[in-house]
């Protein structure tokens, strides 16, 4: 009968581990997809849809499910792409579309007819207005997603470059375009009225 001992030992072990795993899966169960959450936290949350998904969360879900490659977030730029690639453990891929400067939407109010279509399109609720009243954009909250441009029947929305604010100004890399721009601005005595 001695040859049965190891069989019993392993059977008992299997039972204990099986029960343990069953309990663990019951009590340590995590709702939702933590991987998608991590990716979602890295995305810029512009909700622009440039990735082909209707917002940042759906794209994060798709990336987490390995349905789509990591290089579709244009506003996130290279930094976001590298971070996501790092998390997903895949090779970084170059972003196809060119990186753009930060912009916000601006409504030319005298042309606005008050149709509220842009209000419905804004994914972050940052357009204020009522039917037949001028609409305006809370630029502090605008993500620059350009989703309000398309529904506007009179084309009165412009994307304007966000101005550099003094309190948010940071030093540019020595010798880059931005540094040269700052130099020329200083040379042109801009800011003097």
């Amino acid at each position: 009968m001695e040859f049965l001992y190891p069989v019993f030992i392993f059977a008992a072990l299997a039972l204990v581990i099986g029960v343990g795993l069953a309990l663990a899966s019951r009590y340590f169960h995590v709702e939702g997809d933590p991987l998608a959450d991590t990716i979602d936290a890295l995305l810029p949350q512009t909700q622009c849809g440039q990735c082909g998904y209707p917002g940042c969360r759906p794209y994060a879900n798709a990336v987490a499910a390995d349905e789509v490659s990591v290089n579709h977030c244009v506003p996130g730029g290279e930094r976001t792409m590298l971070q996501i690639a790092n998390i997903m453990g895949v090779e970084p891929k170059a972003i196809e579309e060119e990186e753009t400067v930060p912009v916000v939407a601006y409504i030319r109010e005298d042309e606005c007819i008050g149709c509220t279509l842009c209000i419905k399109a804004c994914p972050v609720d940052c357009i204020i207005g009522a039917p037949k009243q001028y609409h305006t954009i809370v630029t502090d909250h605008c993500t620059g997603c350009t989703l309000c441009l398309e529904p506007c029947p009179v084309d009165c929305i412009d994307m304007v470059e966000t101005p550099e604010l003094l309190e948010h100004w940071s030093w540019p890399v020595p010798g880059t375009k931005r540094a040269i721009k700052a130099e020329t601005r200083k040379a042109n005595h801009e800011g003097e009225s």
Partner: protein
Amino acid sequence: MFDIWHKIQQTLHINTTSGFTGGLVHNNQYKLTGGYPIVACPMPELLMHPIKQHIGDPCEPIVVVGERVLKGQVIAKAQGYLSVPIHASTSGTVEKIGEHAIPHPSGLGMTSIFIKPDGLDEVDESLHPLPNYRSVDVVELRERIRHAGLAGLGGAVFPTFIKLVHDQKHPIETVVLNGIECEPWLTCDHQLMLEKAHEIISGLDIIMHLVEANEGIIAIEDNKPDAIVVVRKTLVDMGFGEHIRVKVLPTIYPQGGEKQLIQSVTGKEVPAGSLPLHIGVLSTNVGTSKAIYDAVCLGEPLTERVVTVSGDAVSNPTNMLVRLGTSVQFLLKQVGVESFEDLKIIHGGPMMGELLTDVGVPVVKASNGILAMHRPTIMRAHHDEEPCIRCGDCGEVCPAGLMPNLLAQHCKEDQFERAQDYNLFDCIECGACSYVCPSHIPLVHYFRYGKGQVSQIQREKTFAEESRQRSEKRDARLAQELAEKEEKRRVAKEKKEARAKALAEKEAASQAAEVAVDDATQDVSVAKPSLDNKADVNQQDDKKAEDKA
């Protein structure tokens, strides 16, 4: 003798005497204006007061165009906690309130209040002098110092009143007065100590009273022997010999940095990420101390400061008492600089200051020096960047004990997390590493870039988080609206069905009655198809309603 010793130190990068590691020794011959008496700068034609001259939140203008203001009157009130008001530096009328260039590396403008002086220099006397400050309530004294617009005059312009509080958890034992002035060329603090020693020591006494400290130390470098003698003598004359003493330190750059100074004076190192108050020390510049005296004992807010106007392009360099808001151009005109061609103007000291391209910028609370240099003097330092040869000189001179070469490499490659692991934020931007770098790498520039990017990334993260919340709330709202609509439709449908049923029943009943009346023997199945037809029609109606919705 000292010069030879300094030279040896400089060549060997040794630093045996000072408390902190690293540092470098500048040639003392650049301190052209040491011992030159402070002269008052004449009244300019226009004064410009930017609404933010300190670290913290900008002020809000409280005057209107055309209003007459007096010297020392508040023209912009503090907004938020980390803020101090701005005062008019002479009497006159507010000419306009608008954008104007300020001494800032970005070249961006800031809202400024323009005052046209009327030449009368009438003083606003709303602040009454409090000569017996020891009997005044501490809270009132502190409020006075805030109201007088005091911010650190050494160059960092941190609102002074915030530091001057007695904290039970971190009691201040020692107050260190910073009379180091380690930047080459600058001599404004040196001259102030020579001329206003009494005021400076009184100011120190006020600080010690406020924070309940027992020990006061005035730290002076050994390249200012005359100031040491004068301050010591004044201390004895005033009878403060017991509590306040002068500490003479060897000349080394950047000993004037707050943490470096505290380490040199007390031997205690301020831990990374902590404040001096955590080790029971408070330090202020001698200029600030004098301004505290003015604010408390004389009731004068901060409207003027001593500025060293020097440089190798200036024929008669001086230390000047300048009204805040005077333009740099006007200031340089006073020392004989008329043409700015082939000149480079530096705001601050040559190590940490910044190059001005617009000489129309005003003198602000942070301006401790205006230097006019010949272009070649500056340009000699501006070679193209060459690869790092790993000589390690930058690490040896770094007063914060960092490894500038690796830090710069990480910043250059946008590896900001790694740069933070190498303690990027402990860098005080003293410029010693860039100064000694044989490859002319603008190391400090990279650190500034890195620091800016880290805060930029942080800001973007916060913005993204806000946007996500807004978007989630919107989605939830839309889902709720949809559910409500669905619910309404369901209720309407039920009602309709009920109505249709009732109608059908009624019809059936009436038909049955009719049938009963007309022909009792006829089969009731005739009515059934009509009922079914009705139901079909009802269903079609519902479908239409759904499509519409």
